[in-house]
Every structure is written in C-alpha cells, then in structure tokens.
C-alpha cells in the first residue's frame, strides 16, 4: 500500500488522525495533514482505507501498488 496526500485539498478536519493516528498527524500551526508513514504495514491497511474514505476533502489517495 502506498499513500499520497494532497495538502492543498486538506481542510484540517483531522478525521484521518482520529482513525489512524499511527499513519497521519496534523501540523501544529495550520492543521494540515502530515503523512507519518507513506507505506504502512498491513495491520494499518483497513484503518487507512477508512481514513481515506471519510476524509471530507477527498485529500487522501491510497494505491495498492507498492
């Protein structure tokens, strides 16, 4: 799994951090997403897909190609 985030689209909701805190964080100054782990382990995959699905700015893209 490979994750990409679109910082311009990100609205700083933090939904991704609520769901997958080991993979996502937010910048202190403006709340924009920080990708902690672009290629997370398998134990995180379901959470990451959930985070991408509920992102209210559609700013998280998940690809299955390594």
């Amino acid at each position: 799994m490979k994750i990409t985030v679109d910082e311009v689209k990100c609205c700083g909701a933090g939904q991704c951090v609520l769901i997958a805190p080991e993979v996502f964080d937010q910048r202190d100054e403006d709340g924009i997403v920080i990708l902690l782990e672009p290629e997370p382990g398998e134990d995180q995959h379901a959470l990451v897909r959930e985070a991408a699905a509920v992102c209210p700015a559609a700013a998280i893209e998940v690809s299955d190609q390594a």
Partner: protein
Amino acid sequence: MTSPGSVLIVGASAAGLSTAEALRRHGYRGRLTLLDAEPHLPYDRPPLSKQVLAGAWEPDRARLRGQPQLDALDAAFVLGEAAVALDAAECAVTTASGRVLRADAVVIATGLSPCRLPGQDGPAGVHVLRSLDDALALRRDLTAAERLVVVGEGVLGAEIAATARTMGLDVTLAGMGHTLLGDQLGEVIGAMLGRLHAERGVRLRLGAAVDGLAETGGRVTGVRLATGELLPADTVAVAIGSRPATGWLEGSGLTVGDGVECDAHGRAAEGVYAVGDVASFEHEGLGRRLRLENRTNATEQAQTVAAAVLGADRPYTPIPYFWTDQYDAKIQAHGVPSPAAEVTIAEGDVAQRRFTALYRQDGRVTGVLGWNMPKQARLLRQQLLGTAAPLAPA
C-alpha cells in the same frame, strides 16, 4: 449477513459515491448503479463557494475521484437523468426519461435543493449556489460585476461574500439573523466573524428581511429590504438555506418529514436507505432525530449505511463536524456549538484570531470550536467529546 444482488444509489455526490465505495470495500460484488440528475462525474461541493468560485481551481480539480478510481469501482453511472419517482415496496425508481431502474436495495442520496426568494427566477443576475453549474454561472457574473449583494447570513452566504470581496467586488451581505452564522455558531463567535467581514470591507445588513428584488430591463439592479433601504447590485447571490430534495418521493410509501425518515442505521423501509443531507436519522447518543447538512456527515454516514445494506446492525452516532474557510480564517466546529450555549476561550488569543473555544450547556461541554487552530480543536474534541465515528462494520 445477507447481501443484496444489486444496489441502486440515487445521487452521485459525496454521500452516494462514498456509499458505493464503502459497499465495495466491505466486499459487495453485486451490480452497482449510481443515478444523478447532473451530467457531471462526482465532484465535491465545499470548494464551489471558495476555490471554484474564485477561479483558483479549474472545475476538474473539484472532482472527487480520478478516472482510475471510478473504473475500479465497477459501477454504472447514469448521469444527467433525474429520478422522478420511487416505489419503495418494489425498490423501483423511475427516471425523467421514463426508464425504470430496479434493484434489491435503493439508497437515497439526493441531497438538498436551495431555497429561493419569491420572484428570483425572473430577472437575470440572481443566483443560488448548490451545483457546479451554479458556481460557474455565479462566477461568470462575478467576473463582470462590480456590486454583489449576498442574501443569507449562514455559512454559504458568508463564504460567497468572503470570496467575492477577495476578488475585489463591492459586497453587501443582508440576512434575517442578527449575527453572521448565528444559527450555526452563536452570537459570540458570529460577532467575531462579522467584525472580520466588516474589516475586509463587506457591508453587513443583519436582522434585515428582504422585501424584494429591483430590476431594469430584465436584469437585477438591487435588493429591497423591509426597512425601505435599496441595496444596489448587478449580481445577487441567494443563500437562504436549503430543503431536502424529496419532492420525487411523493407517493413512494416512505415517511418524509424534514428529510427521509430513517432508523439509526439509515433504513427508511425494507430495502430502502437514505444517506447524507437528505437523511433524517435517529441519533441514539443524543436520543433524538437529527439531519445533518455537512460534508463530513456525507462520508461518515455512508459507512454506516453501506454496512446496513450488507446486513450489519450498527447505529450511526456521529459527533457532528463542519468547517468553513473565510479570508484567512479556518474555522472548525466539533459537536453541537449551540447558540444557547455559554462560550469560553480555551486557548490561544482572540485578538490574534488564533484560538479554541468551548461551548457549554448545563455545565457540560457540547461543542469545540477552533479558529485557525485545527489541530488543537481536534485534540480538545478527543478529550471532551470522544471520538465516536462510524468505522469498520461490526
């Protein structure tokens, strides 16, 4: 768990598309159809009043998914074709061209229709903003206009005013309420937002009812207030709220009140579900019926409804969340920031316009607000409101 052989989703915007994706993610392999009155592939609405209206984004940038992701969804998109009737007992939807689409399960995701002022459909230059086409039409007028009047002091009206003012237009905002976003955020924060707009040069006419539109030669020339004042305008944006788009459900057999009435799982009838802005659901945590008009609800509720379609029995108990961006203010609201609540500043500095605030009712924190402090607001939400969100199916 039982799984239907075919699912028809009526509405291909955020809630409908998210439901489709969640069905696939949870293993649904049957036929999947998305029907929408608009001709466009799924796009996002929050940018319409901001980046798209300002011209900072081409319309394509607002698309929710790229073509490879839509292809991977393995769904049939029937676009530019409105649903005009539902037979809930038969799970059959009739479209404007007379086609009848049947499925084992129907998900209603038709969203909202914007309210209009009496007489607004007469003169040119008067707009609502709900769809991409609405946004592009308003943008065309704004690029040629000098004076915009926005009617409506809610989130959408305030965002349109901020965008147009930033584009250099002369902007007046008129609204029935006495405070900008008063219904959404209460007087304390609403007044701060009003000051921000005033500083940026927007004239506010709050607590003012609109009496009618003035026109000359078929084009709007102003907005008349009940006070007698005439606000000159060559373009008018009307943002006075919306109603659930349920007109097509008359005679369907469903209970329609303020939206399609569902249970806590999004079920409106056997095999029929509703999701997003159009859905009124039982919130078991709050113990009352709730209908949320925000972007986050569209995707979150879609997770629960998709699970329900596939036979799961998990209630939807969200912590409501919305955000708004106006000028350089990024405002985030978690929970229920009720106008009746007492507001206190939790951290940061109001003068610097970077702070968090708590909303308290009966001594209990019911809402958290961040003003240019999104991360800190989210942390407070976790501490004070919990993290309840509909995640993977039970």
